[in-house]
């Protein structure tokens, strides 16, 4: 009894197990079934592949499960494959559950064979048994188990069927310490003999044997595996060179005799091995229904040359509409909540620095970020539906040709749309949506260029400038801006792919998975985990940067004597009016029924306050910066006030409007009611339509807001790219604005007579 409970406690802490298998084999569904809500998502160190972990609790057992990314092979083609391989080799999970789609047995077993070659403790979950049976397949899992020498448990992940038997088998495997010897199959006499020579050399030299079995290292050398060869080169360059020599010789021999390659021989032999197994009566067909019957029917329209693009546009516009329609109300609630907190804090704290820090720095900053949460949630719900149903692969398929011209990938389309491909998106979920891209280079080029899109926060700025200078061409200018943003983003991507992120495009070869109805549980988990990641990680950094931006616009403060000047001015104004009027203003509930004298006084006082705010802004670090760069920014038509507004716009693009308001000595400008500001701008001698258009282009392209920068840094795995996007985008924006402003000035377009 006592003994038994000790072993159970050991079970709890000792080893973790891993789920591995092909994409679309039901792996994540099984993971959700096993762990329920007891899961959390992190990243593998240094890279952005999601690492999902969860806990299985049943009958006193508590087992940690890692859901490895879906892969087709262990060949280090994609970052997912590298991650899965490294995890299996370095972390040595106690048991690896290999989820095999029974209705697509042959291809799924290709990965299984590679697991067996690796010699890891394997247990097969033969999933989607219901679908296989419906299609007339009868699989003899006992025979399969006997031939492969591993436990094979039939499951139906969607309904949870078979999961208890599966976990019983896993626990059984964990309870005795069996040695697992790697499977050795024949890859043909030529490869086998080279393999033998290499394995001997590797064993003798103890080459990488602390991590890999000798034969496996040899196999990877023959497969020309870049990651393995790099590791070998570092460890023992002489031996590594000798191994490559053997491979070279074999490759030449195979080329001459069979016109093939070593890695081709190896892959063919694996498939041959699988076919030999299946021919022993593992699978029997009572009737052979097409697994793809329904998918075929849908695809007749969904990827048809003419109806396909139409359906795609409808789906994308629909996704957009739903997201923005449904997130509008919750965003308003959150904004109202933060306005309330803002007001509470403003009245609870004495006027001064602390109040300004808490209210303008912390509450407004964090509130601005949390306001995005409903938007991100709905956007990810939509994307999860498209992903889980299998449609997103079709979109990538249809648009790959277009995006490839610019060095991107079919999968880049989603991030572009989400970021504002149809005016009014948001680059934050857009950058996060770039996760669907498997290849690093195309992914990086995508997430660096999506901030060029016409996001929702830029709209108030455009609305302000359009109403001031282009009242008669509102729609045309708006459309032009969106078109320009697309052109610029794609060209920038092309430029990046030709320079900074140079490299061949990654092979496209991808599966179009059969359409499946997404499970509700899966949708909720996917949506929530992404949303929570945004709240948690972005939230911490954003708080810091909000405070920084606030400080830049607040310090250094006006010297005491200048503050006193404004106080004196205010007092003089007060004394110019009868005491009754002053009292009327200082009483509570001032809004209603003010006498005309009191109204006039209030207006004058607020003008003084506006002048003070402007003076304070000029004196602050941001203000000094704005004035200092005026010499350069003049080329693009921006004065120091615009410069400050643009600095403030780094916090969030909407801030440009309110900062311009402060800079033009208007107090209490809120972004919705910019009528008076737009009039001020329209009549200001510093402004003309050309300067306004130049500013619009600059706002469209310059440094992404810091929330986006933080997201870029996180998603690309390095702050380097966060800083790069700030510098790169600002330079591009400035060059464009200068060219437009100078050309316009020269040709006399858009300047006042």
């Amino acid at each position: 009894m006592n003994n038994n409970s000790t072993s159970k406690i050991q079970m709890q802490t000792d080893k973790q197990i891993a789920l591995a298998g092909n994409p679309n084999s039901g792996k994540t569904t099984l993971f959700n079934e096993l762990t329920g809500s007891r899961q959390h998502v992190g990243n593998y160190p240094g890279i952005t592949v999601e690492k999902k972990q969860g806990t299985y609790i049943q009958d006193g057992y508590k087992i940690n499960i890692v859901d490895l990314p879906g892969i087709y092979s262990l060949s280090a083609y994609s970052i997912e494959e590298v991650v899965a391989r490294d995890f299996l080799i370095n972390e040595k999970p106690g048991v690896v559950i290999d989820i095999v789609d029974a209705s697509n047995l042959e291809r799924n077993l290709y990965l299984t064979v590679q697991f067996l070659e690796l010699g890891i403790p394997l247990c097969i979950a033969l999933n989607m048994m219901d679908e296989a049976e419906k299609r007339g397949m009868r699989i003899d899992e006992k025979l399969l188990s006997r031939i492969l020498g591993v436990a094979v448990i039939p499951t139906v992940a969607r309904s949870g069927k078979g999961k208890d038997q599966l976990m019983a088998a896993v626990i059984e495997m964990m309870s005795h310490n069996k040695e697992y010897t790697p499977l050795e199959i024949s890859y043909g006499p030529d490869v086998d003999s080279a393999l033998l020579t290499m394995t001997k050399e590797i064993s003798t030299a103890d080459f990488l044997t602390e991590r890999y079995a000798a034969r496996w290292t040899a196999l990877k050398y023959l497969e020309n595996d870049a990651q393995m060869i790099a590791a070998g080169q570092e460890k023992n360059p002489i031996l590594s060179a000798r191994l490559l020599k053997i491979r070279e010789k074999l490759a030449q021999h195979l080329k001459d005799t069979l016109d093939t390659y070593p890695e081709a021989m190896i892959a063919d032999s694996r498939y041959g091995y699988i076919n030999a197994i299946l021919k022993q009566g593992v699978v029997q067909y009572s009737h052979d229904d097409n697994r793809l019957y329904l998918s075929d029917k849908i695809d007749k329209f969904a990827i048809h040359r003419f109806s396909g693009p139409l359906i795609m546009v409808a789906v994308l516009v629909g996704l957009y509409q739903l997201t923005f329609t449904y997130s509008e109300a919750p965003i308003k609630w959150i904004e109202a909540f933060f306005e309330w907190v803002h007001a509470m804090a403003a009245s609870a704290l004495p006027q001064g620095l602390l109040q300004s820090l808490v209210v303008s720095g912390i509450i407004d900053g964090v509130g601005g970020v949390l306001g995005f949460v409903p938007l991100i949630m709905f956007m990810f719900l939509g994307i999860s539906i498209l992903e889980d149903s299998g449609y997103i692969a079709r979109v990538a398929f249809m648009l790959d040709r277009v995006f490839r011209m610019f060095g991107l990938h079919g999968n880049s389309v989603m991030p572009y749309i989400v970021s504002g491909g149809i005016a009014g998106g948001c680059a934050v979920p857009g950058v996060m949506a770039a996760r669907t891209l498997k290849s690093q280079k195309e992914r990086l080029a995508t997430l660096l260029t999506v901030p060029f899109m016409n996001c929702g926060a830029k709209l108030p700025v455009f609305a302000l400038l359009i109403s001031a200078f282009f009242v008669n061409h509102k729609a045309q200018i708006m459309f032009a801006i969106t078109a320009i943003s697309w052109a610029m983003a794609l060209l920038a991507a092309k430029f990046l792919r030709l320079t900074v992120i140079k490299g061949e495009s990654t092979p496209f070869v991808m599966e179009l998975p059969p359409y499946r109805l997404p499970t509700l549980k899966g949708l909720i988990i996917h949506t929530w985990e992404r949303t929570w990641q945004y709240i948690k990680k972005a939230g911490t950094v954003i708080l810091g940067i909000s405070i920084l931006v606030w400080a830049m616009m607040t310090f250094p403060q006006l010297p005491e004597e200048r503050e006193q000047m404004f106080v004196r001015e205010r007092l003089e104004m007060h004394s110019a009016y009868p005491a009754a009027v002053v009292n009327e203003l200082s009483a509570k509930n001032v809004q209603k029924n003010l006498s005309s004298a009191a109204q006039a006084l209030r207006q004058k006082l607020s003008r003084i306050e506006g002048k003070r705010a402007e003076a304070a802004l000029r004196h602050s670090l941001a203000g000094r910066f704005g004035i200092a760069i005026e010499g350069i920014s003049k080329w693009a038509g921006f004065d120091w006030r615009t410069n400050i507004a643009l600095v403030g716009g780094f916090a969030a693009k909407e801030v440009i409007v309110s900062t311009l308001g402060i800079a033009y000595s208007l107090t209490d400008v809120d972004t919705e009611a910019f009528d008076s500001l737009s009039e001020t701008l329209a009549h200001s001698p510093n402004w003309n339509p050309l300067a306004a258009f130049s500013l619009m282009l600059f706002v469209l392209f310059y440094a992404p807001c810091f929330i986006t920068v933080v997201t870029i840094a996180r998603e690309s795995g390095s702050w380097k790219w966060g800083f790069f996007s700030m510098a790169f985008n600002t330079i591009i924006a400035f060059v464009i604005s200068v060219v437009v402003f100078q050309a316009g000035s020269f040709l006399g377009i858009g300047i006042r007579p």
Partner: protein
Amino acid sequence: MNRIKMREMADNQAGVISAIKVAGELGRRIRDMGLIPGTEVKIKGRAPLYDPIVLQVKKYILALRNSEAEHIMVDVDE
């Protein structure tokens, strides 16, 4: 029996892969996805801009670019 490149196959044409004429990353990826000599394939169609190609392999659907189908030799009837 005729040996042509997969790229040259017509929509709805079926055939048997005879060789994959590419090594390295692309070759490995093609084989990992189940395209090996002896495999039956059927072209299901092409994307709106005639690239990539969709094809059925055994019991699943793959998409690959023309530039990739260039390396795959297929035996077709006629």
